[in-house]
């Protein structure tokens, strides 16, 4: 029997019912995540990258709901688990790191209480063992004098240190997958690189796979093995990070890469993608990117492209089919 990928998402569709009909926030996305792999999910605001993450861990904000498709963790479906079973799995098998470390920690409890509680909820250990484990984890994420800091409250830590605590918290039950949603966006550049490096190191040491959701291509380039570029609730392009960044195939990815000011090149004009991402209630027919694309053909306006192989990656663009056909 073939081994299952760690996480497998198939034709996932997330809808938000409204009075004027359902809005489709995620429209049929599929991807796999192998054990120990770092998958970057990148996109601009409103692309659906965070909703993809919250759908996987079953924390979609109502009225959002999974309308169709399936999510499997090592072959078992987790999208239709009852809430109690999902709660057990969350934290134990899938850890989470959110953007703002201040809101993901409870301000009324010491960080020791929070880590020890989480460890004891998920692992069969005594309180003493849990405490030792908490200290070891805090040391691992680079908190100085970890033993004494257990009795400190979240507000007594700086932003970077708090994010370290959150990473320790996410890893404390040895999960197989960590979903990190913009883990460094609230931090300064110098601290950001420390946290990225930390996340990378501890996940490698523990063999934890990471789904890294961010808007920052630089973070993806540094950290991820593969990357999925999202646009309007769909995956525009997915593939090895080097291929997608160095030789993107989808016109949206090409535009996105050109829009980032370079640190080495000349002071040229930045590539400009006209317009902005469509709102959920007015996603165009066919390829969602077609009104902003410079290569739009008739087919793009009527028929939605599937992911088409392009080198080692896949991109959802009809143009690829055409150039491929011409090459044959």
């Amino acid at each position: 029997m073939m081994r299952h990928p760690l996480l497998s998402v198939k034709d996932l569709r997330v809808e938000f019912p409204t009075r004027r009909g359902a809005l489709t926030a995620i429209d049929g996305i599929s991807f796999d995540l192998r054990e120990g792999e770092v998958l970057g999910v990148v996109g601009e605001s409103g692309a659906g990258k965070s909703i993809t993450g919250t759908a996987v861990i079953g924390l979609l904000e109502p009225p959002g709901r999974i309308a169709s498709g399936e999510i499997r963790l090592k072959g078992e479906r987790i999208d239709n688990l009852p809430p109690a079973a999902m709660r057990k799995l969350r934290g134990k098998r899938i850890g989470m790191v959110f953007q703002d470390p201040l809101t993901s920690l409870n301000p009324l409890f010491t960080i020791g209480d929070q880590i020890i509680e989480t460890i004891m909820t998920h692992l069969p250990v005594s309180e003493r063992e849990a405490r030792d484990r908490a200290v070891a984890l805090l040391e691992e994420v680079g908190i100085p004098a970890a033993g004494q800091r257990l009795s400190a409250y979240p507000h007594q830590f700086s932003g970077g240190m708090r994010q370290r605590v959150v990473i320790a918290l996410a890893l404390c039950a040895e999960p197989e997958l960590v979903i990190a949603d913009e883990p460094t966006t609230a931090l300064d550049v110098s601290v950001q690189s420390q946290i990225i490096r930390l996340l990378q190191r501890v996940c490698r040491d523990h063999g934890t796979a990471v789904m890294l959701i961010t808007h920052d291509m630089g973070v993806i380039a540094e950290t991820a093995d593969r990357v999925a570029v999202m646009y309007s609730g769909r995956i525009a392009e997915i593939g090895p990070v080097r291929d997608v960044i160095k030789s993107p195939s989808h016109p949206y990815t090409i535009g996105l890469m050109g829009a980032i000011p370079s640190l080495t090149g000349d002071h040229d004009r930045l590539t400009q993608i006209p317009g902005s991402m469509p709102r959920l209630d007015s996603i165009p027919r066919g390829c969602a990117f077609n009104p902003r694309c410079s290569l739009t053909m008739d087919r793009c306006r009527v028929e939605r492209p599937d992911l088409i192989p392009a080198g080692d990656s896949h991109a959802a663009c009809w143009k690829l089919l055409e150039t491929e056909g011409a090459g044959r």
Partner: protein
Amino acid sequence: MNTVMQHATAESGAVVEVRSLSRTFDVSKPWLNRVLERSPKAFLKAAQDISFSISKGETFALVGESGSGKSTVAKMVVGLLEASAGEIRIEGVDMRSRRQSGQEMRELRRRIQMIFQDPYASLNPRWRVDRIIAEPIRAFKLESSEEAISARVGELLELVRLHPRDGAKYPHEFSGGQRQRICIARALASKPEFLVCDEPTSALDVSVQAQILNLMRDLQDEFGLTYLFISHDLAVVRHMAKRIGVMYLGRLVEVAESRELFRNPRHPYTRMLLAAIPDLDMTGTPRRPVEGEIPNPINPPSGCAFHPRCPLANDRCKRELPLLQDMGGAGVACHAVEEGRT
């Protein structure tokens, strides 16, 4: 030390000259607490001894992490915040002097405008866009008739690549990038010469950021605008600015031509900042790890504020504050660089 910055003035008639600008905030606890807890008054030196000049049509950028004082400087330069000490001259007119008549100050304020970071917070949600953009025109009495005002508003909207009809809408009907365009149109309404842009694209997505940055460059070319550009994003700063000042804990630590700063950063903090940018080119070069975090500005380290994080620090750095040294049009405030210990 001000000689470093004066050379630009002498050569090309600087539009903006800032000299030894400082701002201190009183962050003391209330009087009773101070008496009971015997705690002294506490001061936060948000900006200290900042000097730079910007020549006409140039973009000068201030870059730094949060708490470095870059926004404080921006606010002082436009006059939204009173400086504690120092001098700000806009085309030779001293902003802080009380000698100017009201008329002169009004004229000066017309020539300086500001673009803020958050285009959601900086537009009045209850005003239609045309009224927002017309406000500076009315305030400075630049047009007399209503027809002329509405014609000018339409012109401004077209200038920022919006449609004149958009004037009848409210801010909430626009996306973040479009709102920032409205902010730019409002800033241009008074025909300013000098724009202070405080993180104008930080709240925007990359593709929208590219649109706004391109627009700002086009407008600069068209109207010969002078920009003071504040940002934490080094790539954006490199793209926009001709010269860059790097700030750390309220002080300028390095000033250099943009290309030179990236090719040959001198100050250890600048080097650290550049090393911390994620590498999009994927050269695979190992990056020097960045140590530590920004210290508390209320109680900054002695001597050079960067010394606890600096790999080159020695005893002198702990004791003595380094001043910005003139290095041919650029400047570095670092004992190690001065002594050649690199």
